[in-house]
């Protein structure tokens, strides 16, 4: 398929996953801040850090602003100047889809367009004001059903594989970042067990992992078990390992390994190597090395996105495309 179109499919998937992830993290953190008696700073600062917006946010609003849940939510949901805000992510997903209208199915386009129009409407603002929980839930479920519509209405050809390659790479990075930041924050606070358990449970919820975790662990929550679950659980669709494997298998369909002459060799090999390396941690998983492991995943997934750009999306190095600049 056309390289630019592949690029826009990939970013459509990433932005969609990003919006969903942000909505989930914000919703969960809001509950945590309300319920567990946690210092607001310990609840909200990690959220800003996960989004990668720490520097800009603190520069604009001052160090104290990280305590203000409303300010953080406003910034990460609505802010026009924050490229990671939910509004901007959805607009970017929709812009990418609009540029490839002939590729995206009509039903997927209409659903995404309707979501985008809703977010811009006064009704969305009203729901945000009157029923925050329902607002975040709507973003989350709309983004999830969109992925379902894509799967259920489009040809399962390269366009769809590129969309889910984007979804899965974004997801691997998001889960890694969420886990890394929270793990670090939890260890640095001197909390007693009850609060610490609440924090780990909220972390699971932020990754939609609460119920799956409980099914596998029968209610026994420990920091090690949660971290292990989020990194390694092969059956949990948001674990780092699952996401990387899924991404690698999409790329395998786009570029079958038995056709080595096709473009994309380096992307494929690095992605497969990363997935295998994370899988190998099964044997000697240790939370002491967690930060290093997650940092490597975050750095390597972003490097692989760069290699994909060069090998498959026809980008000249160091020139960001419109899709990425958004």
């Amino acid at each position: 398929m056309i390289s630019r179109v592949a690029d826009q499919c990939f970013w459509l998937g990433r932005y969609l996953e990003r919006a969903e992830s942000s909505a989930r993290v914000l919703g969960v953190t809001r509950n945590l801040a309300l319920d567990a008696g946690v210092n607001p700073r310990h609840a909200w600062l990690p959220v800003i850090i996960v989004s990668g917006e720490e520097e800009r946010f603190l520069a604009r609003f001052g160090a104290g602003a990280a305590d203000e849940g409303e300010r953080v939510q406003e910034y990460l949901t609505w802010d026009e100047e924050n490229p990671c805000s939910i509004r901007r992510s959805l607009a970017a997903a929709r812009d990418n889809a609009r540029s490839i209208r002939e590729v995206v199915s009509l039903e997927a386009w209409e659903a995404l367009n309707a979501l985008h129009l809703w977010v811009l409407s006064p009704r969305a603002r009203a729901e945000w004001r009157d029923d925050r929980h329902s607002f975040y839930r709507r973003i989350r479920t709309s983004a999830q059903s969109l992925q379902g519509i894509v799967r259920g209405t489009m040809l399962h050809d390269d366009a769809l594989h590129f969309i889910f390659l984007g979804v899965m790479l974004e997801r691997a990075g998001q889960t890694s970042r969420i886990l890394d930041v929270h793990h670090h924050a939890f260890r640095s606070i001197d909390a007693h067990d009850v609060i610490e358990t609440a924090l780990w449970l909220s972390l699971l919820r932020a990754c939609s992992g609460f119920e799956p975790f409980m099914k596998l662990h029968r209610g026994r929550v420990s920091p090690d078990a949660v971290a292990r679950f989020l990194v390694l659980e092969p059956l949990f669709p948001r674990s780092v390992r699952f996401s990387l494997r899924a991404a690698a298998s999409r790329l395998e369909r786009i570029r079958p390994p038995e056709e080595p002459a096709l473009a994309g060799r380096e992307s494929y090999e690095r992605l497969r190597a990363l997935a295998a390396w994370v899988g190998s941690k099964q044997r000697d998983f240790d939370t002491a090395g967690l930060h290093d492991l997650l940092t490597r995943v975050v750095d390597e997934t972003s490097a692989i996105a760069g290699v994909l750009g060069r090998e498959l999306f026809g980008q000249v190095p160091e020139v960001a495309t419109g899709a990425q600049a958004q």
Partner: protein
Amino acid sequence: MKITPSLFDGYAPLRGTWDELFTARGDKRPSFSKAIDAIAARSGAEFAACQALAERALMNQGVTFSVYSDQRGTEKIFPFCLVPRMISAEDWAQLERGLAQRVAALELFLDDLYGDQAIFRDGTVPGDLVLASKSWFPKLRGVRPPGGVRIHIAGIDLVRGPDGVFRVLEDNLRTPSGVSYVLENRIISKRVLPECMDAGRVRPVDVYPSRLADALRSVSPVDPSETTAVVLTPGPYNSAYFEHSFLARTMGLELVQAEDLFVEGDMVYCRTTRGPRRVHVVYRRTDETFLDPRVFRPDSLLGVPGIMGAWAKGNVTLANAPGNGVADDKAVYPFVPDIVRYYLSEEPILEQLPTWVCARDEDRRFVLEHMAELVVKAVDEAGGYGMLMGPQASAAEVEEFRRRVAAEPRKYIAQRRLELSTCPTWVEGKGRVEARRVDLRPYVLNGREGPWVLPGGLTRVALVEGSYVVNSSQGGGSKDTWVLKSEAS
């Protein structure tokens, strides 16, 4: 006698104009009687609900155009009126023949202009006037396009005067737009007024994309079955982007932007995830002056360097062919009847508006003296811009145009203001239908087998009361156009 309120109760055609659906006395035109009855069965309130449904559907489907003046890329729906414009089978048969004839003649004219220029030798058309067109590209002279066709897609704007005669207002031979609205409007009519379509025996328009794809492949430099054709768009911020993606989608072709294409060894290739792929036919919706920075504007970012060279070598078909603009120049328009006679040795079937060409001394004198009665148009502007509506203009505006015409006569032509025909049109604020002025743009496709006319077209309507301007940028909307089947078929 049963009396129920119906949509057209109290509808009054404007005095001195032709109404498309009703006679001057207010009776239904007999050809449309069944279809009108079917529509009239709705009350105003019922119709308002249908109209709202139609608008919502268009917005959610993203059937929109971008508004240039808005930096943030606001999109609007092209206002749509659900009351259709109808054309009888007899009228259409005549239009169809006339349009095919006109396009065939303009095709020969372009071929001659970029070839021997025989037409200038016997003085049928003044060469100095034609060659002074901004859209005449001398460096393209001698190039024969692959497949021998230049006007693959034409949009010919027609208006209908008080006498009921259709006349050509202008030709669009470069990148005529609007056909996607024809097809989308029809989808909406079918959804919202199904029984009326049925009663009216309306000819289908949905064959257009496959006819277009066939026409494009028929003029490929290689075998049509081996041909890769693409649609080239300036990008999603172009006002007609919806249409570009619509056509690509409905033809099953890929929609490309300039950055997706490159030229090597005078061949055009597309960058794909599996390496370069040769492209044979480009339906380009990029303006020709932006098409190739090596030949036209060097600052163009929308262009593909070298694509003109590939075209000149016969390795890629560009539709429409670059250079067509000289034949739809408003200053050339007055000579089209002569052009038809010259190349086809036939009388033109379609009439057109009497036109004064300001480049001619006698005409210019007349125009300067009668400016306040005339419509004066700049030859190189479109979309209703650069135009003086004499009868409605202030003295200062008339004076301003008098100065402009005297300074640059080649740039202007003048016509009498035509009483455009009207059609019943839904007026939101009043909750009823009133007469509003309309025009018509039929589409003609031209491949190896010659011209084919889509049985339908874009009816644009001036939604503002009393207005003559149908352009979407200035308060215009559109209607579905129903060409009816003949009784025999």
